[in-house]
């Protein structure tokens, strides 16, 4: 069971008036959001980090667990230039000279830009020609994060070159004013930031993160040149809640970040790995907490198939392991409610006269439901009320937090259908690369690598690890050995494994400073 001393008191109910229930939130925080891609989680984190850096409190909560108020940018000028500006190239092509082009374009922007108070004439003096301006915009646009997705323009993001390119997700109302929605930035990035704050590596990570946000590169400068000098577009945010003071999963997340930063990859090359590893740790956080709440001694594990040309036993085990894990968090929600039902308090309440009202109040105190009359319109019976709660909680969980495992897992390449029609764990090359980069300093003996993958992430590739978690009936040594050999070949083809002889191989990090 969870140690109560590491759990923070939840925020007061009126802080989250729109929340109809407080169950997922108490277990995992407010909130794990399934439809936020791993890149957007990362961007949300950077926004929060940048705002904190600006106020001199990067990765430092100063003992206040809630709220962590911060002021992210909106940067409407920049976003209009980059993503709400379809006539740009056309004007550049048709206009006879730079001057005419500027005039035409500025004119067009007056009618079409949204959510801005002033015009774009400041740009004219900042570039040698309209042509140069257009080619820079074109390049920045091509760098957009997840440019292949079909999001509305106000939810598109330029690559996080630095603070000048960071801004929060917005919707544009029909009247043209920007409003904050929690669809693409669903607060999971804020949770991630808080996890880093509460990890053992927070202190060491501070300079790394500060460097990422320093904007010491030409691209960030260009981004700032695309915007008016003074923008006063800050609004205070900060309703996320992470219930735990400390947790080993936070520490592991922090360590992985630190190791990536210490590799000193050039430019922004470490970002995709940080994105992948962060989402992996969020997924692990969810499953680890689920098993801790349920008092399970076995920590979560993932049997991973290293893609085989034909169907193997491992594929089946990986698929069934996936299915089990995918239902894992739902089970925790059910158990959470079962524990309420089995609690003395509830039992007592049921026995009293006027029990329904007492039970209702009890639930409101425990799970903030049914606060509003429309939340529950069933009969006045505590059992029915509880059944309804169970249903509401499960439905709600399945709509969002319950999909985190699957969605994040697919997003980072841990879960896939490749070569079959069933989802299972089958890590792709970029995930493997991220794992090697974060775990191998110089080199690591192959078996040690396998055991590290298991102890840190629960990832199972080889027979030794599989043997510890599987029943005799399910375990097949040869199949797992073959799986581990395939992993070896895959790592080899990524230039990350060196075989010394038939008995000895080292996983190597080709980017490591130690040669």
């Amino acid at each position, binding site marked *: 069971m969870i140690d109560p001393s590491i759990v923070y008191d939840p925020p007061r109910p009126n802080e989250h008036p729109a929340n109809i229930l407080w169950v997922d939130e108490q277990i995992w925080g407010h909130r794990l959001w399934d439809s936020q891609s791993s890149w957007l989680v990362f961007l949300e984190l950077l926004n929060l980090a940048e705002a904190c850096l600006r106020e001199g409190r990067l990765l430092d909560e100063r003992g206040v667990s809630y709220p962590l108020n911060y002021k992210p940018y909106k940067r409407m000028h920049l976003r209009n230039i980059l993503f709400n500006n379809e006539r740009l190239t056309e004007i550049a092509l048709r206009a006879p000279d730079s001057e005419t082009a500027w005039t035409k374009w500025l004119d067009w922007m007056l009618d079409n830009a949204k959510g801005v108070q002033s015009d774009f004439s400041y740009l004219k*003096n*900042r*570039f*040698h020609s309209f042509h*140069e301006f257009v*080619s*820079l915009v074109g*390049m*920045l646009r*091509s*760098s957009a994060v997840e440019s292949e997705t079909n999001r509305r323009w106000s939810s598109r993001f330029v*690559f996080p*070159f630095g603070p000048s390119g960071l801004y929060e997700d917005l919707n544009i109302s029909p009247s043209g004013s920007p409003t904050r929605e929690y669809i693409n930035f669903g607060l999971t990035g804020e949770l991630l930031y808080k996890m880093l704050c509460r990890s053992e590596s927070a202190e060491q990570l501070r300079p790394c993160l500060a460097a990422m946000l320093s904007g*010491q*590169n*030409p*691209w960030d*400068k*260009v981004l700032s*040149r695309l915007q008016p000098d003074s923008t006063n577009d800050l609004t205070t945010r900060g309703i996320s809640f992470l219930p735990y003071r400390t947790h080993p999963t936070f520490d592991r997340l922090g360590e992985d970040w630190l190791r990536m930063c210490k590799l*000193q*990859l*050039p*430019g*922004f*090359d470490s*970002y*995709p790995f940080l994105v992948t590893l962060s989402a992996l740790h969020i997924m692990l956080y969810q499953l680890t907490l689920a098993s801790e709440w349920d008092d399970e001694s076995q920590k979560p594990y993932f049997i991973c198939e290293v893609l085989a040309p034909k169907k193997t036993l491992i594929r089946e085990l990986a698929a069934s392991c996936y299915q089990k894990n995918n239902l894992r968090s739902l089970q925790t929600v059910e158990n959470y409610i079962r524990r309420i039902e089995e609690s003395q308090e509830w039992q007592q309440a049921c026995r009293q006269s006027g029990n329904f009202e007492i039970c209702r109040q009890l639930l409101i105190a425990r799970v903030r439901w049914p606060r509003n009359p429309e939340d529950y319109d069933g009969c006045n019976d505590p059992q029915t009320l509880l059944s309804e709660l169970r249903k509401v909680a499960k439905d709600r969980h399945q709509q969002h937090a319950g999909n985190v495992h699957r969605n994040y897992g697919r997003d980072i390449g841990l879960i896939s259908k490749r070569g079959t029609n069933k989802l299972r764990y089958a890590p792709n090359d970029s995930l493997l690369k991220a794992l090697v980069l974060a775990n191998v300093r110089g*080199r690591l*003996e192959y*078996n*040690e690598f396998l055991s590290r993958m298991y102890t840190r992430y629960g990832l199972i590739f080889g027979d030794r690890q599989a043997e510890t978690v599987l029943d005799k009936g399910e375990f097949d040594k040869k199949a797992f050995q073959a799986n581990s050999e395939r992993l070896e070949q895959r790592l*080899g*083809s*990524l*230039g*990350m494994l*060196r075989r*010394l*002889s*038939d*008995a*000895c*191989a*080292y996983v190597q990090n*080709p*980017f490591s400073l130690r*040669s």
Partner: protein
Amino acid sequence: MADKAVGWITFLRKYGPIAQNDNMYDEHIRKSSRRLGIRPIEFPHPIEKEVLSIFQADASPPASVILTGTAGDGKSHLCGKVWRLIGGGDTEWASDEIYYQRENIVGGKPVTIHIIRDLTALPDRDDQNRYTNRRELLERFCESIFTPEPTEVFLIAGNDGQLVESWQRLGDSDLISKTRSLFESFLVEGLHEKPGVSLKFFNLSRVNSSILLDLTLDALLSHEGWHECYERGAEELEFFGNRCPIRHNYELLKTPLVQSRLKAIFELCEYNDLHIPIRRILLLLANAILGHPAVKDRLLRPSDIPQVLKSGTVSKASLYNNIFGGNLSETRRESLEVFQNINKLRIGRETSNRIDNILIFGHADENLRPYFDQFLAADRFYGADEAYYAAQHEYLEGTDEDTSNNHAFLELLVGQRRGLFFRVPEAQAQEMTLWELTVFRYAGEYLTRVMGALKAGGKIERPILSRLVRGLNRVFVGMLVSADREIILAKGLSYTDAKVCPLLEERISVIPRLGERMDVLLSNGKAVLRISLSTAISCDLPLNLTRYEFLSRVAEGALPSSFSKECYEDMLAFKSKVLRALSERVQSQDETPEMMFRLLSIDEHGNPTEEIIEVSDD
């Protein structure tokens, strides 16, 4: 007399790919040797002298020795030699104990010498109570190697994986992890000794396989067993008569051309970091001489010869094909690492138009006829025989819808291409596009003009260097640039490893200029490509054969990711290192990033051009 010759061939078969327990290999050979009264094929190991010298009475100071390497590298054999040197007896050694102990004078002092001939087999408890338990013994070893003048020394043999694993299992005390990381650096960095450590570390897998091949060939070919065979004075159709394939294979193997090509194959494996131990070399050679797909174990016995000659299947005993395990079943061949390694060159499967034209049409084409006669018709054993002409006719003229006959001819072609690989003399190598018979078209060049030149203390030629630069540039930039006088470092907007990199970062001169340069050098016997950014900052890329081929092919127009994903990844990682080194240089010169972009594009000739965009700062 006759029996001895037959006995020798019977004995030689034991070295070949016949089913036997691999762990008992040495004993197996020794037993046969005793039974048949034939001397085993033996030669002093290249490091034998050095290892023995460490245990001499005048050696100073005493030190322990670790012998590691792949199975079949000759570790236990060397242990036996040391045992005899320090006065141990043959019978004791033959008892197949794992642990031996003896007092002797080493370096002028009495020292206890422990010999562990197979680390994994070391029992936890000694039945003679010479050590308390395995852990205690190994800890004593760890202590002794960090003692300057140890009073006990160890000789431990074990393959590299076992070595690492045994020490992992011992736990994490300071002494043990210190020893473990010492092993690791010995293994990975290929070191032999370190100051302050009383230990010499010999990784037998680092001994060059082509040197081992020379020694093994010599020991095998000069064995007195062959003399016995000649002494028989056999009739034409008998074993070791002048039509006997065993005799022909033996004689072929003695020719300098066959030996030099075989040696080239081994060198190429070596340059691709594939080591072939002695036991597997013996297996390969025994199979080369005795292989035939239609006899028991697919290895000829003297008694098979009359039947083989009668049935006209001599050509199936071709040495050229046997070298690649062509006489074995596919599964057997693939289970043997030596053939796996050698077949990575794909000799027989790769070809050029010229070669196939000679093989297929040469008989009937007057221009090609001389070559056909020289390389195929002239070889009355393994050249074009009746079966070949028949299959060729069927392939060219046949109307049969059934294509299985074609398949048979294509298989014959594989054998003939292999034959060509060993028959084409050096002088005709270029004309005959010899190296196109392997997957590495640039292999010949790599052997002579790169490794050969470097080992002779020379430099590689400018055109080769230019080609490598062009290859690197095409990977680094992701466009078909043809610049070969400077390394072009470019990156994508957000990532440095983008497929196409439109932002020019820096140009590094290949010809020495202000500390910048690019060279190919020799380091620890291997080629290394070095890009220097200044006199103090440089990056190295080990340039093995595969990478050399990769860069050469990319330079000639191949797409980087189509040849080898591994190489492509390696090059991107290298680029990342160079870029990191570049930022180091920028920092040391205290330059601040400017508001300027260098956009890279290429003109129709592949020349890189740059357009500069500046953004005003005010």
